[in-house]
């Protein structure tokens, strides 16, 4: 039986049984934190606290859904890092491969738990029999989260095998697999011509409406990849820098979990 996280316990304490119940401002208020919105020149969001009261300021000019994640992130700091002075750089935030500072990852994890609690997210994701960015976007809409936050949440709470890969013009930027995705199946560092990622990155094609079946070797260099297929769905995910920061996110699930049999055999399972 999974133990509920601190964020989830807090939400249950306030009777949150549906995504629309997650009133972040009101929840912050119950923690002694007031939320303000204004343009900020030096950061995207900040928190100042004294004793058991705090003021969280959010720059919502980057979009409502991103602002919700920023607010949840600051709530995470308030719940986890009270009486500490921290500063989160862009490198810390984007360091999803483990480069980010421990406390920033902790605040991000708290934010994901608070905005998209697994006890609500997982039952809704099970309603989608063919996972792709269509289902990730539907979940993002339900929880008023960004596509990227929803996609990361999907692989984090997925109890089967799925992976999210982010590509930039120079190749793979980061990736995250679900808990059961074997480490031995790490994605290629470079764009493979069969992946279609380059065409998307440079605007030579548009994203598919749904996932498609492609050879696993388009994304994975493992010796047995040629024998298997994966369902892949790639979308353009421009970061806030605009055209020059173009990214492609690819969501992958294996056609069959037999794809990983060789790993388990080599591990002696």
């Amino acid at each position, binding site marked *: 039986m999974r133990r509920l996280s601190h964020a989830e316990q807090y939400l249950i*304490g306030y009777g949150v049984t549906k995504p629309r119940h997650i009133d972040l401002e009101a929840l912050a208020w119950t923690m002694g934190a007031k939320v303000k919105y204004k343009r900020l*020149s030096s950061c*995207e*969001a900040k928190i100042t606290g004294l004793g058991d*009261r705090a003021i969280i300021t959010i720059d919502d000019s980057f979009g409502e859904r991103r602002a919700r994640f920023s607010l949840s992130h600051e709530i995470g*700091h308030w719940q986890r890092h009270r*009486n500490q002075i*921290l*500063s989160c750089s862009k490198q810390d935030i984007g360091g999803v491969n483990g480069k980010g500072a421990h406390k920033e990852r902790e605040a991000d994890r708290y934010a994901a738990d608070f905005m998209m609690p697994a006890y609500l997210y997982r039952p809704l994701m099970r309603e989608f029999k063919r996972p792709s960015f269509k289902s990730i976007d539907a979940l993002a809409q339900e929880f008023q989260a960004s596509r990227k936050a929803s996609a990361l949440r999907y692989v984090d709470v997925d109890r089967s095998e799925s992976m999210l890969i982010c590509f930039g013009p120079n190749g793979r930027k980061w990736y995250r697999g679900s808990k059961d995705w074997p480490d031995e199946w790490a994605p290629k560092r470079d764009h493979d011509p069969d992946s279609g990622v380059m065409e998307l990155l440079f605007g030579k094609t548009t994203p598919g409406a749904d996932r498609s079946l492609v050879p696993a070797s388009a994304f994975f260099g493992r010796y047995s990849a040629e024998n298997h297929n994966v369902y892949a769905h790639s979308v353009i995910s421009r970061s806030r820098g605009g055209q020059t920061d173009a990214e492609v996110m690819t969501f992958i699930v294996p056609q069959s979990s037999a794809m990983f049999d060789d790993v388990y055999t080599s591990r002696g399972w």
Partner: protein
Amino acid sequence: MTKKSKRDELFDLADNVVDTILNMSDEELDAELEREGIAPEDAVKAFDSLVDSARMKAGQKSLLRARVEVDADKRSARSGRPRSAAEALALVERAAKELPQMTQAARNAKSGAMSDSDVFDLLEDLEELGFSFDRDVET
């Protein structure tokens, strides 16, 4: 902001029950249910019922009350005493010295010195949080 109430007492009771159940392994839970002569399906329903019952309703009501307080707070305008940028910076630096246990974090922060608007923002936040700048400051 929200004060402790009978709701908290109810939460303590419900939390103890929920924590006890969540901390048990599946085997321990099955054994406990068998001892009590309760079918696992009935226990699941009872647990759901517990979670859905008074605790949930009290929590939802409390959250709605918090929303009303948030909206009321937004309507109450605040304005601090006008200060020069130099005076504001001196006050913020003084606060940093006098408040070593202050909580501060900034997401996607740019490196470098604080801008004037950052300083005014911080001063406003600290005043709203109750820090007194009554003493004179040399600028």
